[in-house]
């Protein structure tokens, strides 16, 4: 892992890249990371709003609903040490899995909301935005992964692994059984995970840029 000697380089566009090739790439990678992190933060914010709204209006019963999120099959580090101990490729893979696993459920959730008018218009728009964001964010993280692979930061064993497990997760019918509240609860947590994992990943790979 090469040492990045650049210090205090502003997080701007790639037009600054004049001197060394690697420095320029790292700058753009940090830039990419910032974008996906910002994107994930926004996604998490929306999911949080929706969850709070759901909790407020629908007052779910206090019965102990099993919080079996369909993504529980995906092994995710649940602590800082675990997250730091895990390999970068694995961490990236976890992120991608999560994002893929939520693509279909969120879409159906939105369809459900729009059809049955369970939410107001604002919330309906949020659910739509949420489902679209998952899609966009997954593409963004894929780009980041490709960039890292290009830079040699991570190995190339990422692609196949992620897709297989992800497909497995999305095909499970469990998510169809979840009610809306559970779905929102699970997604809120998973979006937080994604955001956190991305931050950890960034500060491990390009720590100089705002960590």
């Amino acid at each position, binding site marked *: 892992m090469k040492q990045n000697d650049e210090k205090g380089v502003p997080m701007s566009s790639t037009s600054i890249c004049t001197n060394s090739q690697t420095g320029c790439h790292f700058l753009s990678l940090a830039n990419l990371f910032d974008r996906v992190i910002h994107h994930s933060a926004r996604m998490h914010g929306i999911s949080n709003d929706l969850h709070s709204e759901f909790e407020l209006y629908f007052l779910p019963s206090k019965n102990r609903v099993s919080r079996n999120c369909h993504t529980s099959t995906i092994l*995710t580090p649940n*602590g*800082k040490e675990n997250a730091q101990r895990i390999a970068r490729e694995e961490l990236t893979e976890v992120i991608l899995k999560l994002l893929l696993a939520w693509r279909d459920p969120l879409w159906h959730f939105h369809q459900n909301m729009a059809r049955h008018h369970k939410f107001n218009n604002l919330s309906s728009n949020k659910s739509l935005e949420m489902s679209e964001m998952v899609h966009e964010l997954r593409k963004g993280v894929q780009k980041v992964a490709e960039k890292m692979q290009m830079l040699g930061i991570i190995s190339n064993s990422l692609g196949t692994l992620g897709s297989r497990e992800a497909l497995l997760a999305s095909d499970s019918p469990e998510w169809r059984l979840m009610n809306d509240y559970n779905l929102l609860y699970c997604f809120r947590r998973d979006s*937080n995970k994604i955001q956190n994992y991305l931050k950890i990943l960034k500060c491990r790979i390009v720590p100089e840029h705002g960590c």
Partner: protein
Amino acid sequence: MMRNVGGVIVLSLLLVFVQLAAGESFSPPGTPKNIICRSPEKETFTCWWEPGSDGGLPTTYALYYRKENSDTVYECPDYKTAGKNSCFFNKNDTSIWVTYNITVVATNALGRAFSDPVEIDVVYIVMPNPPEEVTVTVIEDTNWPFLRVSWEPPEKADTRSGWITLIYELRIKLENEDEWEVHPAGQQKVFNIFSLRPDSTYHVQVRCKPDHGFWSEWSGTTFVKVPDYFPRERSMWILIAVFAAFIILTFTFIWLSYMKIHNLKHYVLPPVPGPKIKGFDKKALKNGKFEDIFSSLVVSDFPPTTSNYEDFIVENLEVFVPEEQELIMEDSKDLQDDSIKSENSTCDNDSGRGSCDSHTLLIDKGGGDKEEALQSDQEGSQDERVPTSPEEVMEEDLLACCDEKNSPDISEKVKFTPSLISPLPRYNLMNQPNPPEIGKKHCLSDSLLNPDSLPSYFTQPPSTKNDFRSNPWECNFNHKQHPLHPQTTGKEHLQVQNEISWVHVDRTEASLGVQAPSVRSTEYVEVQRVSGGNMVLLHPVSAGQENSGTMSHQTEHYSRVKTVNNDSGLLLLQKESTGEEMGICLSEEEVESRATSNGYTASITPTSEKPMVGINSTLPILDDRMASGYVDTATMFGLPTY
């Protein structure tokens, strides 16, 4: 373990019985309330609860929790680290993104009490410690010092690895105030504060919050003293100056709009009032004759010894003229008035010459010089004056300047009207070809208006003719001097004219005025001077007035104007009171030539001798009138006209 528990129960039961026997009541414990769990760094967390009533018995509390989707009940691993009624979960026991179901149980001898379960996820209960190392420095690079506040994240919160992202907030207040000024600072760890009050102390505090969590407590107060500085805000002063100038200009424009330009001109440049007191004569000063200079100031004859007080008091001369003359005079007066009005609205009775227009002023000056020009040079100057119009003859005193002792007696019957003061406009209107007459009028008018100066005539000792020039009240005819009249045309200069310019007898009206047979217009003129050939200055004198002894010298100059001809001139009847001297101021040649005859006419026309002839025939008729030595123009009836 079980034995201990059994022992405790037995003991508690014994205690209960004892207490019951003692009469006290015990109850099971109340439920613990308000379970609050917090994590400072998202790696550990602590839960606190409020114990309910203990029921009078020793009560123990226990915390039990279950993790998500597991029925395994765990008890709190650490009751001590976080203090009383708390439970601390260390890193090994903490799982992020896992829901904890926590219950606190209070137990005493009589029963148990279960609190409500609380579900938490550590991610959402993060409340970091306050920021550390808050430093505030005063940056004084410029005229405007500012504060730079810097801090560090709390030690436990791991922001370097990206595990926690903190956002900060600071607040500041003056030492004496109560209200804080809050500034969100985002994720930065440095913040600048501007617009400080000089020479004051500030309190600064900082706190932080994770992106999904609770705000930390405010950090400890940091005190900072701002030094005293003077804000030299140049742009502020410039702005104030511009604004003030703008206001002043606005008010000036408003004020100007109210004032008319005409009024403004007179407000800014008021017309200089003319001199009301005639001071030193400039020419006298130039000549250096001091006694003449001061003669105008000396009132030696006061109180005047003459009995003719009314001579000196006269300021206005009324001219009693026949109708034609009156009409003429009225017309002339109207013309004068019109001219006056047209010329200058500010000319009034009280104004001297200077208060009128400069145009008038110049003409007046020209008249003054013409006065000088009118003064015949007794050494034989050939100056010829243009005679005045008959109206002016009637209206004014014509100073004959043969002798400086000419009496400035003014006929009572002749009153000077204010219109006489500025005869010049009338001149202009009439297009008189003889502007030099103007000077005469002024000479007269001045003397008339200032009766105080009249005594000077009386008191002057007989002096040479040259002295006469220095007398400001004499119409000095210094034909040589025209310094003040660059504008004087050729006409204004003394002209040797064949015509009798003395009286504008060209005009029929003029001739009527003089030759009116009606005796009413008894205008007596005193011949003051007869210039060479063509000019006679007539000085109207009050009829019936006899010259006093002091005036005896002057009486010799009086003669009656017999007639005024159109072309030929003026018939004068000489008074025989004093005898040999001629009443007519003539040039020396003329004097000599006419010394012989008693009565003679000062024929102004050099061409014909006829008038002389005619007059001689009429002499006897007027002899009795001649005694008074006046020239009575009005009584010239029956005289042949030419």
